[in-house]
């Protein structure tokens, strides 16, 4: 297994956290992993993205020109990252904040209105967990149980009240990711 994943969206959508969550889970499962954020001045109120490489082998390049997976949270990210996804790769799209559907036919595409769904669950900030669930439904990079465990650990005592909602968001994403696959 060797996957190169880009998470991209606006600052504040939990894009970097989604990537870190994957990285922590990969470490917990003793996989090799790297996480790199975009750290330019554009982060302040602008676009944010991170690249995560998960592999069974030691990782050379932590950067990727053609990721095998892109999870896009908004329209600028869809415009930027649809094209570079490797043929046969996976594109997870937040339908709520994108304009037109992706046009590639040589990659797997999952579209779900993640922000609207998060809103239904009570907080748009859970958009990232819904998209993360959909990603896992299609590419079981790490086990769901690991994600749940790490999520609870990372939310910590201070955000313990958000545990249940986040787990529900993750489950909703998984469910829809599977449904679209069928």
């Amino acid at each position: 297994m060797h996957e190169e994943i880009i998470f991209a969206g606006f600052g504040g959508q939990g894009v970097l956290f989604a990537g870190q969550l994957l990285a922590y889970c990969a470490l917990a499962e003793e996989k090799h992993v790297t996480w790199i954020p975009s750290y330019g001045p554009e982060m302040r109120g602008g676009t944010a993205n991170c690249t995560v490489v998960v592999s069974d082998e030691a990782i050379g390049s932590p950067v990727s020109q053609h990721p095998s997976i892109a999870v896009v949270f908004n329209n600028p990210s869809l415009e930027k990252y649809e094209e570079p996804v490797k043929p046969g790769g996976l594109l997870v799209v937040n339908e709520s904040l994108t304009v037109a559907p992706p046009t590639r036919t040589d990659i797997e595409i999952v579209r779900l209105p993640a922000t609207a769904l998060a809103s239904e669950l009570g907080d748009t900030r859970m958009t990232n967990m819904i998209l993360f669930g959909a990603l896992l439904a299609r590419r079981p990079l790490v086990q769901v149980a690991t994600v749940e465990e790490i999520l609870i650990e990372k939310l910590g005592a201070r955000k313990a009240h958000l545990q249940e909602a986040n787990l529900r968001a993750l489950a909703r994403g998984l469910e829809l990711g599977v449904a679209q696959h069928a």
Partner: protein
Amino acid sequence: MAVELMKGNVALAEAAIRAGVEAYFGYPITPQTELLEHMAKRMPELGRAFVQAESEVAAINMVYGAACTGARAMTSSSSPGISLMQEGFSYIAGSEVPCVVVDIMRGGPGLGNIQPSQSDYFQVTRSAGHGDYHAIVLAPASVQEAIDLMVEAFDLADEYRHLVFVVADGLIGQMMEPAELPAMKPIRRPRGDWALTGADGREKNIITSLELNAPDLEELNNRLQAKLAHIREHEQRSTEMLTGDARLIVVGYGTSGRIAETAVKQARREGMKVGLFRPISLWPFPEKRLSALADQVGAFLVVEMNAGQMLDDVRLAAGGQVPVTFYGRTGGMVPMPEEIYDEIVTQYNKLTTSAV
């Protein structure tokens, strides 16, 4: 100790703490500020010194002062800040006091940008300041190696009473990767007998880089150069992969060396006999091993995130025996494995053609 997911900058800071750094002086600059932030939190907790200086010039002179007392002292900065510190580096080298400097390089020249770069290679490996000397320069390619080299940097600084750089770029500084920290070392005691510890009951020690008498300054230089010659002989460090039967060897350090590894593996899968040589000490440059490899390969391809700086050292080590070509990106652009792979194919095909 457990394997943790750690950001490069934080790992460097915590590794320095574990190595027993007693005093940190710095001034914030992206992309290394997390290092300073970690120090700001941890050093006071441990009863050690942390000072956010008013400038980089002040910071390096504080390091100089602390180092004169025999304390393990350090600073960190990024390219433009490193330029400001150059006078201090030279005084430290001239005074022969140990200290460690971290440079998380960014795109230049000038204010440039904050993206990853290796544009300070010349600056840190040639002399890092005015005068006639080299600093020891170590270049990690992963978070784990950053930790290991940070600890080693303090040992080398002490052993040679010299200036040691740990250089990386914004990518390694910002990257999170699983790594393991070493156990906490005790603060080193006693201080060196050369250190300024109070002259009660002994002859006074004088630490200075000033010597107005030319014959005496030449003698001082001779002693410094003999030390550097010893370092050059004994402290060359490098690692390599798939070089045994390689016809083309890619040479890269830090981030570019690591990205090149992916390209080299791809080339191997395509049946090309390509290897990777990754210098870990940039000064002393691992010329002995590279010269030996020059006897067995058809060509070297140097990959850097600059316009070709280590290229000079590879050419010198190759001694004109084989062609040395170059691929680089500048301005904060990071080369992708695919680009390096394409360049490998181009250079490898030249070798195959010329062999026919």
